[in-house]
């Protein structure tokens, strides 16, 4: 279908227009929420590469984002260069960590439940480590993060820092959408589909299961790692608490499932909805965890296909119905 090739441009144009319509000078509250929205959309699409495509439920998104952040920031500080110079290294390092974990898990033939237990343990250990490594992370109290700016662009466009950050996220999300699209429409996607359905049969057909799973893990965590240094720009500082399971992973997981796995729009729709709900619940902080916990349970039990797939199926049903009805 022709529509396929316009999917990503359509999403990018739509997301690019949002700041023009909604961002107002001085109203950082609104632009902050939109920036958080696009960040979570990026993280959810990254998780989709591992979880949606190859059934590796990685529950250490927060920790990986932290690794990307600290690698980028601390390396830049010790080399005396800007974050631009080290952000790719931060992403690559996060990706290598993710690839190693996925490689070992695939090698040991850990199923989806075991890999989720493994990664959630790693998540807890990572945040503990961030807390302990005061020299690198500033410990509990955190550390200030140098700004990721490009004077030339922001002054020409007349952007505020958050607007610039939003477009930076959009750039990253666009790259991820392109990679996601390429992977799912190539031999990689074919291998992912088969691995997800039956690993033994896939291997006996000639698919290098371990290599593909490790690769999917690398791509997912590489992008998560790149999100890190951008994420900490929102507040200009980084504390280990910002990388906790409850802060990052819970939302990313709900967004991916509610929006729809194995779709490009799912994470965007899911992030819009969940970030909105999250903001609406700010007034009732004590219920927030409860609401999201309940949501996660209900989603996994009854709504695994997500909004985007649900809408697509509905449209197809209606369409067929229309064909059958006389007149």
């Amino acid at each position, binding site marked *: 279908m022709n529509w396929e090739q316009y999917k990503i441009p359509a999403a990018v144009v739509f997301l690019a227009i949002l700041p023009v319509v909604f961002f107002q000078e001085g109203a950082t509250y609104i632009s902050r929420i939109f920036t958080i929205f696009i960040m979570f959309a990026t993280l959810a699409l990254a998780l989709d590469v591992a979880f949606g495509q190859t059934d590796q439920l990685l529950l250490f998104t927060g920790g990986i984002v932290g690794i990307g952040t600290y690698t980028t920031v601390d390396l830049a500080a010790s080399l005396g260069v800007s974050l631009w110079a080290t952000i790719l290294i931060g992403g690559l390092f996060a990706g290598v960590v993710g690839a190693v974990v996925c490689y070992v898990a695939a090698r040991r033939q850990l199923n989806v439940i075991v890999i989720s237990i493994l990664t959630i343990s790693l998540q807890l250990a990572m945040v503990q480590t961030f807390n302990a490594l005061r020299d690198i992370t500033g410990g509990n109290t955190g550390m200030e993060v140098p700004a990721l700016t490009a004077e030339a662009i922001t002054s020409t466009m007349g952007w505020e820092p958050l607007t610039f950050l939003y477009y930076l996220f959009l750039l990253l999300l666009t790259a991820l959408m392109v990679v996601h699209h390429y992977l799912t429409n190539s031999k990689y996607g*074919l291998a992912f589909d088969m691995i997800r359905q039956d690993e033994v049969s896939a291997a006996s*057909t000639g*698919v290098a299961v*371990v290599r593909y799973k490790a690769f999917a893990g690398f791509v997912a965590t590489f992008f998560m790692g790149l999100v890190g240094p951008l994420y900490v720009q929102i507040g200009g500082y980084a504390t280990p608490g910002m990388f906790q399971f409850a802060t990052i992973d819970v939302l990313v997981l709900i967004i991916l499932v509610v929006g729809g796995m194995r779709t490009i729009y799912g994470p965007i729709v899911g992030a819009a909805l969940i970030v909105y709900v999250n903001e609406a619940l700010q007034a009732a902080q004590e219920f927030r965890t409860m609401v999201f916990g309940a949501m996660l349970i209900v989603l996994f039990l009854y709504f695994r296909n997500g909004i985007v797939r649900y809408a697509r199926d509905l449209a197809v049903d209606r369409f067929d119905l229309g064909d059958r009805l006389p007149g």
Partner: protein
Amino acid sequence: MLTANGVTKTFGGLTAVDDVTFEIGEQEIVGLIGPNGAGKTTLFNTITGVHPPNAGSITFNDAELTGMEPHQIARRGVARTFQTARTFNESSVLENVVVGAVFGNESSPSLDAAEDRAHDCLEFVGLDGRGEEEAGSLTIADRKLLELAKGIAAEPDLILVDEIGAGLTGAEIATITDTLERARAERGISVFWIEHVMEAIMSSTDRIIVLNQGRKIADGSPAEVRDDPQVAEAYLGGVEV
């Protein structure tokens, strides 16, 4: 082409395959029979790398297979089907076969080339025109044919077929048997074939290997095997008389 020498596979204290030696030649159809638990599927698993043998060697076209990963063995030209057809049921029929064409050998064709080859293989097994259907919606017999098409799409030298006749009607078995014979005749593929349906295997194999309690007890033409007293005993011995 395939040579197994002293292959032994134990699980804990149980010896599932016990010092088995055999050979399969070019374009040969060889049956593998034996009572339940004789170690037939385990022998397949040692060849395909799913359960590497504890002792012995398996060579294929002069390359040692033991120690290789299942996907490496598949890419060297050993395809297989499973007792319960393990098709990718959420994917389309065509995709199932494309996977075999893309990943099943060293040539790594483009997706387009693989699709052409897949269409050809679907036609070969008689599933042409059904490529867009979901594999899970096919009957068991058709899924077995689909698995065969996936295997053939890899252009293997040898295909291991595990109880492909189980649960099928006589007519369906005849179709499968015919397809296997044509795979050999038209595509030069050797077949190593586990089967419980005796009529099928007796009439269409060149040679039959018999396993009992992990050991090879006979290896000869269907007629020789049928008249072998040891084979008769192995089968009758398994029945409460």
